[in-house]
């Protein structure tokens, strides 16, 4: 056969490159119940559609050529549920998928090609950090900055999974993403515990340094936590279904599940009539959304604010709500960050926003002021005012003060209230204390009399009388009302595509 020698060499090289790291390392992963990089790609990408880029890439150092197949990252393009995406899957069995020149070039190639041609990007991340000796010395660190990877305009959705020890460049790739899922047991940190212990003399468990609790509850960097590699990929697949391929396209429309209109009929039983009693807003959202369509985002972080992707009559939306179950629904500094970042996400990818407000206001007090509440409120408001996606604001029971505005009141395409709505500068009971210096415990009779006076003209109908609410609705109509508003405020002139003024908003908070 012609070219027999070349064909044999091609076959041998292909097999060697596809073999990943040492058999020992691959076996260790398997024993630990972890997928290797190629298995992860196989689970993520539709069968037979993966187009690999850089199979024959390797380390720039000749002495490492034999131990660096693909230079530690399986990169390329493939289809996820039929949609073409860019993929960078870290191969930890090859030099810990550490950051080095070719390794970085491959990832940048996928990111840039995807951004220029309108394909989502998926990062399946692990990273031991910067590769030594490659990045040592002036030339080493100099080369590390040659491939732009730290600034990202949100042109195509980028979803990342933290699937193992993920330090340095791997961590930064996740932070620069639109959504991040983390497997329990994985770690995300700037620096490994080994480097940390040497640098600052601090010994610690990697889970404390950057484990799932730390990032899902403390920093809010992680949007969801799952148990296994397969769960990570399933979450990515589900999350992607809410997004368009790129910022100039509208979101995919899903079929409306059967019985989708039923749950909202019971909505009156979910919300206590007494305005001081708490309830779980997530149950209200589940009743409004298409069954099974709610995907919580950062649900363990700043729980006062609920942010989730969902569908209403098949159309993808972002829902932003206050949850009276936590801190009474009073918005704290972290919840401002969480909401601002979610507005950026929705606005960048043409996801209409639905606001559901039941809040006594921003959480005032020493702790909040120390944590820069005033600045956080303004960042939240800046994101809201710069956003151009359709916005529907709804008040459920109460919405007071600046929080009324931040939760979209008068700042959306349309504002409406349940007939239970109560809207004012502050809670009437607080106002009695401040304006008249009367406390309930000192003079209950006088207090009630004044509270009644202060509470005048605070109803949903009062807001509607001056056309600041465009409708007062029966809670059981919430779902159909929102669906109709999304039909009306469809951004038809630009085919549903917004102006994306938040596309360059900083990636993290």
């Amino acid at each position, binding site marked *: 056969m012609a070219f027999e020698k070349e064909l044999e060499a091609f076959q041998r090289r292909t097999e060697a490159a596809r073999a990943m790291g040492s058999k020992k390392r691959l076996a260790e992963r398997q024993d630990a119940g972890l997928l290797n990089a190629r298995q992860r790609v196989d689970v993520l990408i539709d069968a037979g559609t993966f187009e690999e880029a850089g199979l024959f890439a390797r380390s720039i150092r000749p002495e490492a050529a034999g131990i660096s197949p693909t230079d530690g990252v399986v990169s390329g393009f493939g289809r996820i549920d039929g949609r073409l995406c860019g993929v960078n899957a870290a191969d930890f069995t090859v030099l810990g998928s550490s950051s080095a020149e070719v390794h970085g070039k491959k990832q940048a190639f996928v990111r840039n090609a995807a951004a220029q041609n309108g394909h989502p990007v998926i990062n399946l991340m692990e990273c031991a950090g910067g590769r030594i000796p490659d990045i040592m010395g002036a030339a080493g660190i100099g080369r590390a900055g040659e491939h732009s990877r730290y600034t990202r305009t949100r042109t195509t959705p980028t979803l990342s999974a933290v699937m193992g020890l993920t330090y340095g460049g791997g961590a930064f790739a996740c932070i620069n993403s639109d959504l991040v899922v983390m497997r329990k047991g994985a770690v995300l940190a700037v620096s490994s515990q080994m480097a940390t212990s040497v640098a600052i003399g601090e010994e610690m468990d990697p889970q404390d340094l950057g484990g799932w609790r730390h990032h899902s509850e403390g920093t809010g960097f992680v949007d969801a936590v799952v148990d296994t590699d397969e769960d990570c990929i399933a979450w990515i697949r589900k999350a992607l279904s809410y997004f368009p391929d790129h910022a100039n396209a509208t979101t995919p429309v899903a079929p409306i599940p059967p019985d989708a209109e039923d749950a909202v009929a019971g909505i009156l039983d979910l919300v206590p009539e007494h305005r*001081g009693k*708490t309830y779980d807003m997530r149950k209200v959202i589940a009743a409004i959304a298409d069954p099974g369509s709610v995907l919580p985002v950062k649900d363990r972080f700043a729980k006062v604010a609920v942010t989730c992707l969902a569908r209403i009559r098949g159309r993808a939306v972002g829902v932003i709500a206050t949850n009276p179950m936590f*801190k*009474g629904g*009073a918005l704290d500094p972290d919840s401002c960050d969480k909401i601002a970042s979610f507005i950026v996400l929705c606005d960048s990818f043409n996801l209409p926003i639905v606001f559901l407000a039941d809040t*006594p*206001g921003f959480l005032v007090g020493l*702790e909040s002021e120390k944590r820069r509440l005033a600045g956080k409120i303004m960042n939240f408001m800046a994101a809201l005012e710069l956003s151009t996606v359709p916005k529907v604001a709804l008040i459920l029971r109460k919405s007071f003060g600046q929080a009324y505005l931040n939760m979209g009141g008068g700042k959306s395409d349309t504002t409406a209230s349940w007939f239970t709505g109560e809207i004012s500068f502050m809670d009437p009971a607080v106002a009695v204390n401040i304006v008249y210096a009367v406390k309930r415990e000192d003079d209950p009779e006088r207090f009630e009399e004044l509270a009644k006076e202060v509470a005048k003209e605070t109803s949903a109908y009062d807001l509607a009388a001056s056309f600041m609410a465009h409708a007062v609705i029966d809670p059981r109509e919430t779902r159909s009302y929102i669906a109709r508003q999304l039909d009306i405020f469809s951004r038809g002139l630009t085919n549903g595509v917004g102006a994306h003024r938040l596309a360059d908003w900083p990636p993290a908070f």
Partner: protein
Amino acid sequence: MKQSKVASEITGKVWKIVAAPGTQLAEDEPILILESMKMEIPVSAPLDCKVVEILVAEGDTVSEGQAVAVIEG
């Protein structure tokens, strides 16, 4: 059985103690109720547990992060 402390997530006044020491609670059942931001905000059991000690009294002001009860579970 491991003992742990339950902290308040918000600054406020203890309005009502619901579960006396010895009470067995399921996860999310209230231990006590605070009044803050004119809302009745429960401090709930983080897991199925027994209340060992209540560290505050009705009428007390508690700060965010302050331990209000000891539980076992």
